[in-house]
């Protein structure tokens, strides 16, 4: 069954780019990708550019409303995602705990809806 892992963190939290800690964190992500691929778990996963690059669109009463920024102003913002193939929730949670950002951010684990064919 597939799970989406949504990676949230605050701008000022965690290692900042340019620092050795940041390099270590990137290394952690590369290892995660490698391990997840090897285990047959990795389906997809990418980092996103910062929340300041986001644009939100809504269609209301036939008119598009386009605003600058993410859909909601929150301290922690979406930074990336993984789509993983897991046996069950415990399996997915196990992988979530290996994501480097889990140490200073939040990982939302959501099952993908299975649409019967």
């Amino acid at each position, binding site marked *: 069954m597939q799970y989406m892992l949504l990676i949230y963190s605050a701008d000022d939290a965690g290692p900042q780019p340019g620092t050795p800690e940041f390099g270590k964190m990137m290394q952690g992500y590369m290892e995660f990708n490698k391990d997840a691929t090897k285990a047959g778990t990795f389906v997809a996963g990418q980092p996103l550019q910062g929340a300041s690059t986001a644009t939100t669109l809504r269609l209301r009463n036939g008119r598009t409303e386009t605003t600058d920024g993410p859909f909601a102003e929150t301290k922690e913002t979406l930074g990336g995602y993984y789509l993983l193939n897991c046996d069950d929730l*415990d399996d997915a949670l196990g992988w979530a705990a290996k994501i480097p950002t889990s140490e200073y951010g939040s990982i939302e684990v959501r099952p993908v809806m299975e649409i019967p064919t």
Partner: protein
Amino acid sequence: MNDIASAYIVVENIIRKEWGRVLATLIKQFQDFELSEDALQDALLAALSTWPKNGLPDSPAAWLLTTAKRKAIDRLRRARTVREKQGEVLSNMEPEHSFDEEAGEQLDTAIQDERLMLIFTCCHPALPEQARIALTLKSITGMKTSEIARAYLVSEETMAQRIVRAKRKIKAANIPYKVPEGDQLDERLASVLTVIYLIFNEGYSATHGEDLIRRDLCNEAIRLTELLLTLTGDEREVRGLLALLLLHSSRLQARCSINGKLITLEQQDRTLWDRELIKRGLSILITTLTGGKKGKMGAFQIQAAISAAHTAAATYEQTNWREISMLYEKLYKYQPTPVVMLNGAVALSFAYGPNAGLAAIQQIEQEGDLRIYQPFYAAKADMLRRAGRIKEALTNYRKAVELSGNKTERDYLRKRLEQLASKIEQ
């Protein structure tokens, strides 16, 4: 009461006793909580309509299990869309054991106890805390939804919804029906123990005049812990929890006055403490701490030791606050929460004087998030009072009253407030 009615009650009690074990076995087989519970409910109705007339089967558990299995298969067949998973279950079904009622005895011991799996599932951290409590009480102890609702002072509808939503999440998020392994086991066991402790606390906080079923939660919690002890092979932290619950229970009589007023540890009549429960609790704690049991040191063992330290004092004045203070420091390593820090500060203030306690409280104010937590202000107020800083004490007592969500608590705090205010006027 006529014969049929009393037979009915006997049957209900037997079913309640067997409920958890049979349900767990069904869930293991069918891998479906809702289906298993519905099927067992069907079997319950069948039992209620035949046992009072025909007499009890030799093995009620085996009877319930066999009947529930048949009902489950019936339900699966009747379902309009037979999904692939269900098709698998049907085709993988073992050939029906042909056992008659007499052979049922053998089945009793042959039914593998799957309740450990069920407890871990009900207490999964992915479920909201209130749902874990409700699901555990419904599934393992066999309490009825209406009883649980009464115990938690909500409507039956609300409680039923809570349980339904939890079962839906188990299905939708694919929470597995298994005992956690490796790294996850310790953390998940702590989650189970916390649920049981919360159940106990709900009952413990019930006062005289409240529905007796609330008090009964304490007994259910103890029974759950004893069951868990058997299922985990005498795990240390489970023993710690049991010792803690027994020691707390020993004070139930002394804790609440006849008119529902809260009596603090300081004011309790210690002759009302149940010495048998204390003996049992201490015995379990001592054998746990002196080694040989499987598992590790943990928060519940330390909390039990703190409770034991209070119990050892013949009077409040003779309490060994230094020992308790050291135990809280140790507890903080396992439970680094502001609450533990606060309790540690209180113990410190009694061991080394109010100023030591106030210094520790300052640290909490800087680090923790206790600004909405009433006991923080009550504790601070008390220390300020003992330090002779009366005006500040009054301010903090008032804040505590404001934040208190409980009438018994508020009455106690207001009384303190009045006593102090009247002292100033003298």
